[in-house]
């Protein structure tokens, strides 16, 4: 049984991570995006309870921090699954059958976009272009792109992810 983090409370360990990131980036010009990336790289998401610390370090309001986090598709405010599977929905992939692939993946995983499989292994997200348009359709798993994805290839990729702990 997967235990999810209670996101209204951050462990002291995670708070330490957040504060360390703040220290590393607070003096950089235009620090907010690099700082948010650093937090998400370490924790997997940007905990809302960290907003006040971020805001006060950068002389911003909490609302401004919230505004930036929610403006950008890349930033997430909740802990994702252990792996992130992104399906390209842009034109080149559509020309090569990504609509059908998307339907197949949703059916296989039993989740819609922005949802995580019940076992916590995969979070499904849409993405608009991975720059792999010469070999559409494409998906990205964590930081690796896979091109010319058909049912057989995606079945293998998903089963590899499910097998991973």
């Amino acid at each position, binding site marked *: 049984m997967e235990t999810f983090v209670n996101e209204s409370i951050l462990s002291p360990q995670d708070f330490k991570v957040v504060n360390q990131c703040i220290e590393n980036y607070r003096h950089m010009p235009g620090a907010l995006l690099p700082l948010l990336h650093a937090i998400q790289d370490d924790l997997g998401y940007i905990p809302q309870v960290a907003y006040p610390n971020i805001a006060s370090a950068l002389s911003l309001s909490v609302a401004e921090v919230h505004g930036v986090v929610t*403006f950008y598709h*890349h930033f997430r405010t909740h802990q994702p699954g252990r792996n992130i599977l992104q399906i390209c929905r*842009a034109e080149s992939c559509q020309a090569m059958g990504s609509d059908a692939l998307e339907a197949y993946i949703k059916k296989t995983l039993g989740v819609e976009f922005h949802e995580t499989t019940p076992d916590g292994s995969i979070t499904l997200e849409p*993405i608009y272009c991975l720059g792999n348009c*010469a070999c*559409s359709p494409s998906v990205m798993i964590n930081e*690796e792109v896979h091109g010319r994805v058909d049912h057989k290839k995606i079945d293998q990729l998903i089963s590899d992810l499910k097998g991973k702990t």
Partner: protein
Amino acid sequence: MSIKIFVPIDSTALSLGAHEVAEVISKEAQAKKIDIEIIRNSSRGLFWLETLVEVETPQGRIGFGPVTPSDVKSLFDADFINGGKHPLALGLVADIDWLKKQERLTFARMGITEPTSIDQYEAHDGFQGLKNALKLKPEAIVETITSSGLRGRGGAAFPTGIKWKTVLDTKATQKYIVCNADEGDSGTYSDRMIMEGDPFVLIEGMIIAGLAVGASQGYIYLRSEYPHALKTLNEAIYQATKAGYLGEDILKSGQAFHLEVRRAAGAYICGEETSLLESLEGKRGLVRFKPPLPAIEGLFGKPTVVNNVISLATVPIILSKGAKYYQDFGMGKSRGTLPIQLAGNLKRTGLIEKAFGITLRELLYDFGGGSLSGKPIKAVQVGGPLGAYLPESQFDTPLDYEKFSEIWAVLGHGGIVAFDETVNMAKMARYAFDFCAIESCGKCTPCRIGSTRGAEVIDHIMQGHDVKKHVALIRDLSDTMLNGSLCALGGMTPYPVLSALNHFPKDFGVDAKDLKA
């Protein structure tokens, strides 16, 4: 001496298993006790042949592709390292027609060198442009770029030299060079190829831009979807700094230039230059009103050059070979070459750098080989999600900024996405509105609301509700978006929508007689 084998490290090659291919080659060679050296080069951009494995021979590099891990054993059995016969053999890579017919200026080193080897970059004419620029006054560098005829390759096609001149002429204690590497257009990947495959050429272009306008700090605003480009750029910046090309005193010239990569965060709108600057400042990517131009009040309120990756990566060859050399390529007011990216439903996809003037038909059929599915090509979208859809009757249009504008289309960043006859163009028009709604920054009403209302009106048309009225409504809405939006997102969404409607009314269930308002 060990035999050199090249396996590309470009992410499209990786997406087809290049790492695995390299690994199996290495294991097989070990088992057979054959002395080889595997070099991870950039990609030639012949993506339909990836993984393209090359072997160095006295005659030149010979190619094999597309290679999958399961082909490796048979390659060794055929003695491929000594040019043995194999069904995947392609002969000398430089002689492959698809490559031979190109005019590679910006992409001259692509597929040849190792991306982060500064020695190889120098050995292949690297930093020659910078060395020439260091001997010139800033005005003379700007003049060289202006007379080369280079126009912004990001899509807007604004003359690069004029932009630089404005920044040069604006007095300020601090100026910036910002590289727009937020390549979000579907069907485009030339920026990614440069950053992953030849990062030093971008760095060199940015240093030259800094010398030209008097800027000592540069930022590369890189989309978060390109993690490999991030690693490669950071490594290349480290190498260039170590070698004295970046830092407080470039090649002991007394001039400084510092460079840093900043990650974007998945907002398409941040490819718009003022939204990009907001994002770099740590804010939401809301589009700014213009004027003031970024060239006068840009990043942190200072004069800023914002150029696309390809524009900046083309600067070194212009400074190295001269404005006239570059200017001699092209047609009309479109000078030089354009890196064209073939994508979607085509047999032979990849990067084609050609002088302006080549027609779509040549690209789609001579280079592209027609559709991969074998069905007729029904439409192509040129210039990303905000570009028009062109029907077969327009395939003889030459690639030229002005010729495209005459048929109410754009070249944009040079991406071409082909669709076969199974595509429903009404669905694509609806998608264009959807995409605009998802990516709108929300600052101006025509884009924020128009995109959502537009999708709803398309639904009415597709369902056959009062078609004539709704077609008139789409035209009226498009007119508002075209003329009333703050930037190109809302302002150009009508291109894919109306071109789809005008050229393919049947897909919308519209009679030709109902097309006109």
